[in-house]
Each structure stands twice: as C-alpha cells, then as structure tokens.
C-alpha cells in the first residue's frame, strides 16, 4: 500500500505516460477533502479494460509479459473505499483517460497528504517527452499553476541533479505561498 496521498500523484502520472500520453492535466485540491484529477491523451481503455484495470492482477501484458500484476489503480480504489471517498475512471479507447478521486481529510484511515512538492517534482521528472499542467489549490484557497514544458524550457533536463534541485526549490516556493 502507499503511505501517503501524494504517492498517488506519481502512480497516476506513470500510468498515463505508460499509456502513451504526452499531454497531462492534473488538478490537486485540498478543501476539507483531498481531490485529485488526472486527465490524459493516452490510448484509453474500453469498458471491459476499464473494469479489469481495477483488478490487482491485471495489466496490459506489454510491460510484464506472462505476468498478472497491475496494482496501481487497485491500490487507489481500495484506499478510497476504505475511507468512504469517491473514485471515478472515465475512459474511451483512443480517447484518453480521466481518473479522479476525493477523500475526506478527517477520516482516521485517510493516509497523510505527504510531501506534495516532492511528488510534483518527481511527476515532472520521468524520462518521457510530455506536458504536465498542474492546477494546485491549497487548503487556504490560494492556488497556482505549473507547466512542465515551460519550466523545462528554463531549466533543461530534470535528471541533472543541479536542475532537479532548482526545480525542487521552485516548486517548494510555490507551495510555501500556500501557508501565507
């Protein structure tokens, strides 16, 4: 199981990238509930594939041939149902996928939010060419947006440690404004 809610940011972004998406739109909101929505332009799923995606032993068979594993969405739906949240997957074959969930922050079983800045930095740092646009609304109501392409045009390759650290401090500054 994942320790924090921010872990699911990475989980969903990685799913999208592996589904061939290069245009991702992520919304993260904290207002009594923790709400997250990721829509992508990946290869999407048929109704049947969508149902099977929630099966922890399902994967498309490409990454792990002959193995039946695929815990990502299964972990998420399990966590959401444990804390009586909402979870939805909207998808169409070749039309992309939109996964969203909302969980109450006051339920004792809700995982901690975790380090959002670090999760965003890592969501930006996968070895693919893609745009990830993030709309973040903080508990205070303050909000900001980030565009991976825009930041990459300033910094260059995020795998270079110096760039990763600059990216980290940039995101942390945006996130720090949440508490002021």
């Amino acid at each position: 199981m994942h320790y924090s809610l921010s872990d699911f940011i990475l989980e969903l972004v990685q799913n999208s990238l592996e589904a061939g998406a290069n245009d991702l739109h992520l919304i993260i909101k904290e207002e009594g509930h923790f709400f997250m929505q990721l829509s992508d332009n990946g290869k999407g799923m048929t109704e049947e594939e969508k149902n099977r995606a929630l099966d922890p032993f399902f994967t498309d068979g490409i990454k792990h041939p002959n193995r039946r594993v695929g815990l990502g969405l299964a972990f998420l739906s399990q966590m959401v149902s444990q804390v009586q949240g909402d979870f939805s997957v909207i998808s169409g074959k070749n039309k992309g996928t939109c996964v969203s969930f909302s969980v109450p922050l006051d339920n004792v079983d809700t995982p901690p939010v975790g380090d959002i800045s670090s999760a965003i930095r890592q969501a930006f740092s996968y070895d693919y060419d893609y745009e990830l646009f993030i709309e973040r609304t903080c508990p205070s109501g303050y909000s900001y947006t980030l565009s991976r392409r825009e930041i990459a045009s300033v910094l260059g390759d995020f795998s270079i440690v110096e760039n990763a650290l600059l990216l980290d401090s940039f995101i942390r500054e945006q996130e720090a404004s949440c508490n002021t």
Partner: protein
Amino acid sequence: MAKMTLEQLRKLREEKKKQLDMRDPDNKQIHIVVGMGTSGIAAGAKDTLDAFLRCIENRGLTNVAVRQVGSFGLDYAEPTVEVVMPDMPRVIYGKVTPDVAEKIVLEHIIGKKLVENHVYDRPAADIVDKE
C-alpha cells in the same frame, strides 16, 4: 513572501551553469536510476530519490544524473536503484533506504567500492568484463 517567478528561476539556472562550467569539464557522467513503479513507490522510492539528490548536493558532486524509471522487476527488494558509472560495474542495488542511498554515494560513487549486502543484480560477470 513573494514567490519565485520563472524569470528568477532562469537567472538562477544561468548562475549555476557558470559555476558548473568552471569545474572539471571532462568529468564523466554518472547515472543513478531509481525504480519508481508501484512497488517502488510503496516501498519508499520517493524518499530514496530525494536522499540521493540531497547527498549529491552536499558532497558537491557534479555530472550526476538521477533518472526515474518503472520497476526493474525485483519487487521483493524495493526500493531498487541502478548505478552506472565509469570504472565500476553496472549494479542494481536493492532495499535502498535513504541511509543506503547515502552509503551508495559515499562508497560506490566516491569510494569506488560495491556496497555490501545490497547488490541484487549484475554481479560477477560485469566485474570480470569491465566496461
């Protein structure tokens, strides 16, 4: 506090680049590849990755790239990390907690010695057949 703008980020980047260019230019590239699949994330790969960044910064190492990939297939030994660098065999380390990440930077990358008890793949053959 006024938050950082993209313009300020650009300036910082240029300053950093100048400093970097002044350092040893033929420093060879070191790659640290962290497995960030579902099992990696569940086992704490996020903290491992952050520990590498911090430690590399603290030691003032340049020309290190830290990359994120999916699972290496060694899910029982997560978090897993592959280290590729000149003069050392390619190694996949397993059970790399933030403490072990620090050890890898100190012993493997700086000291050029394998870190005991954490080598999970690509062992002997590569040691014999040095790249």
